[in-house]
């Protein structure tokens, strides 16, 4: 399918040297929400105002449905609507007039020459639209100069809703909106998406980006540094590509806002410094750049190799699960039934036997019953029977109860009720991770108590925490050393997490014991 909007090598330079956009290229397809992420100063606003025709690019091209846009086009004539960071309204006109400004329906009812605006129709339509946003003005004839900023922004959103745009450009208006209307805006974006409008959504709010976007294009210092599918990334990865540093010790639960905003400040400082550095770099010539480019090529090749390795592993794991499922069914349907059958036969024989024989037969029957129990447990370990029918939380619940009975370690289980059904592969993996994690607690930790927390941290990520009050990790704990020593438990977990594109962290708790945290992205539920 041809893209609705094609942006090709767009650059923008102010003055001689202030380069705010560098060869930005990406496509937007119909019915797709493309997020534009980046810290402030990354070039989001400049990019949106170029797309809106307010600024002309220094170089590069923009195509709308294959047609090249010439500088200073009027976006609304092309079916492009824009919501700006700050609304531009005419103070002297009333609410309805501002909502319909530029495209008033009226009389005569002809597309071009609606000379006399139909106030009745406009008011009705305006209150319908505002109702949809969830806002009501007592008097639509009120001049907008009296309105507070949030209400002005609501009008700007309402203006977009008077028309059916092909492409909607939203330059994060949420600074002026309270949470209630921010969420409304996200709902509206999802609705536009379902009406196959293309949406470009520039924002630095991760929650918003993860809630509505299909893809995210990350801008940093005016360059596209990353293009990801929203389903396949985590908040942390996104942040690290937004701010351009890879920090290993972000704690998953708190890193979100605090670190992000600090990082944002740092990024701004860095950017300023980078401006000076860039000048030096330019005078130094292209030598460094060549090196960097070569390195980039190698890194890309490595990445590709890694990807195919991961793919193979994923296939292996799926096959293993299939095999296990098969094996579990076989054991259950065949071996257990056979054992039970044998048991009945023995029972029949027992009736006609003398006392001594029947006592030893009873012993045999008891041991057969034990075997059946054992085999059942093996079946359960191979393939949790509840996971297919009742879902992840039920499966974890029953497994934990069993395990707790078996090991005598108390487990406090805390599964967020907000958790809904997820794709099979993810549910299974989480279950396996819980299994492995508990095994580790039992085998190595010498713990009395353990705690499992499973909760969604954002609309598209899941956080699993397993804590215990045991001896904790050895001082120089290293995954590589563990695998050399034959401890495959943690290694298996880390492989699974990596395959899902998630993140694993193991560390000692401040007082006593160990914490394992796993964060996993998952597609729209």
């Amino acid at each position: 399918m041809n893209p609705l909007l094609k942006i090709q090598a767009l650059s923008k330079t102010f003055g001689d040297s202030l380069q705010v956009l560098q060869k930005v290229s990406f496509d937007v397809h119909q019915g797709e929400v493309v997020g534009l992420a980046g810290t402030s100063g990354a070039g989001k606003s400049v990019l949106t105002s170029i797309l809106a025709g307010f600024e002309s690019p220094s170089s590069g091209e923009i195509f709308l449905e294959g047609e090249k846009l010439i500088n200073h086009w009027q976006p609304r004539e092309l079916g492009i609507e824009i919501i700006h960071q700050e609304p531009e309204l005419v103070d002297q006109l009333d609410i309805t007039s501002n909502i319909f400004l530029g495209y008033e329906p009226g009389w005569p009812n002809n597309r071009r020459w609606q000379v006399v605006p139909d106030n009745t129709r406009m008011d009705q339509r305006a209150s319908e639209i505002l109702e949809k946003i969830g806002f009501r003005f007592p008097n639509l004839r009120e001049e907008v100069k009296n309105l507070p900023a949030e209400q002005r922004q609501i009008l700007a959103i309402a203006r977009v809703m008077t028309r059916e745009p092909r492409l909607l450009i939203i330059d994060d208006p949420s600074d002026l909106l309270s949470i209630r209307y921010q969420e409304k805006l996200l709902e509206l974006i999802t609705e536009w998406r379902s009406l196959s409008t293309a949406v470009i959504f520039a924002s630095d709010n991760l929650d918003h980006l993860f809630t509505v976007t299909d893809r995210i294009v990350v801008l940093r210092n005016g360059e596209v540094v990353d293009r990801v599918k929203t389903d396949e990334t985590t908040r942390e990865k996104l942040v690290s590509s937004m701010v351009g540093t890879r920090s290993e010790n972000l704690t998953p639960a708190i890193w979100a806002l605090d670190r992000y905003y600090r990082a944002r400040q740092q990024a701004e400082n860095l950017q300023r410094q980078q401006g000076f550095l860039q000048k030096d770099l330019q005078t130094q010539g292209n030598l460094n750049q060549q090196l960097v480019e070569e390195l980039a090529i190698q890194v890309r090749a490595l990445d590709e190799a890694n990807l195919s390795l991961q793919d193979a592993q994923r296939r292996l794991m799926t096959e293993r699960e299939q095999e296990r499922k098969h094996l579990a069914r076989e054991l259950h349907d065949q071996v257990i039934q056979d054992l039970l059958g044998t048991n009945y036969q023995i029972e029949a024989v027992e009736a006609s036997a003398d006392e001594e024989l029947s006592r030893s037969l009873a012993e045999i029957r008891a041991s057969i019953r034990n075997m059946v129990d054992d085999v059942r447990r093996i079946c359960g370990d191979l393939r949790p029977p509840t996971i297919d029918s009742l879902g992840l939380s039920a499966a974890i619940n029953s497994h934990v109860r069993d395990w707790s009975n078996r090991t005598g370690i108390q487990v406090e289980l805390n599964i967020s009720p907000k958790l809904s059904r997820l794709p099979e592969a993810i549910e299974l993996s989480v279950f396996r991770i819980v299994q492995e994690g508990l095994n580790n607690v039992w085998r190595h930790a010498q713990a009395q108590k353990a705690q499992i927390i499973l909760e969604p941290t954002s609309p598209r990520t899941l956080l699993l925490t397993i804590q215990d009050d045991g001896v904790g990790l050895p001082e120089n704990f290293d995954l590589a050393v563990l695998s050399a020593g034959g401890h495959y438990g943690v290694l298996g977990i880390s492989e699974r997490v990596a395959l899902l594109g998630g993140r694993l962290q193991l560390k000692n708790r401040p007082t006593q014991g160990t914490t394992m945290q796993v964060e996993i992205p998952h597609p729209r539920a």
Partner: protein
Amino acid sequence: MSETANNPVKAGPIEAGGGEQQTLNEYIKAWWDRIRAGDLGSLPIIIGLIVIIGIFGYLAIDKNFFSARNYVNLLLQVSGIASIAIGVVFVLLLGEIDLSIAFVGAVGSVTMTLLLRTGEGEPAWPWWAAVGAAMLVTLAIGLIHGVIITRAGVPSFVVTLAGLLAWSGVVLILTTQYSRAGTIVIQDPVVKGVANQFLSPFWGWAVYAAVVVGFAITEFYQRAVKSRQNLAIKPIEVSIFQIAALALIAGGAVYYANQDRGVPVSIMIVLVFLFFWLFVANRTRFGRYVYAVGGNPEAARRAGINVQMIRISCFMISSFMAGVGGIILASRLGSVSTNTGGGNLLLNSIAAAVIGGTSLFGGTGRVTSALLGALVIASVENGMGLMGWNSGVKFVVNGLVLLAAVLVDAYSRRSRASSGIA
């Protein structure tokens, strides 16, 4: 932004309740709040008019200031200034200015007069063709001004100042070329009749009845529409009061004019144009865009309005209405001369629009303000004329009136800003 509850606008999330019908008390209170907050509307100009009429009524009572004859003269004086001022309002609404109007009007009236002249074997044009040609000339001048201002991005002040000089030269060239004395008499009876003919009492009352009934019907139709839409409606008492006030004031005006020669045709022409431009400004897309461009050009541009087209059109309207005013003034004198368009016509016309309450900063003002402002200007001129003051004093008084109007505007703007509604 959580203070929506404390907000006087009473707007809010949808469950916060809707608009109710206002009671009379609420309406009066809301009106008084607006006045106190500095949103004065036409109030200062009406008070000013009453004060001026009072002063001159006191000073010139023995010089027949209140006579029916003087009243009809006043209406004739108002017509020319008012029609030029109507055009100026459109330019002021954009936040621009047009200094060339007096001489553009003169170019129009001279063109018309020359075409109506019978000389050297060529026949005179019929009056409608001559008037039409004059209107086209003024429209073309407005187009030229507008195009230069928008395309070259030169301030309108400079371009129309150049226009002022150039078109005054054109008037001089035309009038001296066709008449050694520099005065050309208008011979056409229809054109002469514009400012010298009066409606008979019957027609005067017929027009009066049509206007009052028309106003009442529009008022009640709008109420019906609003109530069908569940919008806030002003109390019925206010509507009735407004209709009654119009009936009373207009009735008095017609009655008093009929005591003398009757309602002048020229004021009827001005009223027709007033209603037309009122409709254009308040009811059409074009009018809406004029306010939008004047209020916030960037917002207008982003909304998809062709800002340059609106600007050019407003300069054309300004020139066109200047032409109409020029013809009315020429008709009143019965001739055009080298002096046509000179004197304080330009400043009087712009002052009329500003005194009427049209802001020089664009975006606010009403077309009706041109008529009210012209009434003030004409009353002062008329009163001072009766008193026989010399022109030095006249200029000083005119200046003070204009200054007072601008100060009232500035102060009300400031108190609007401090009360948070600017």
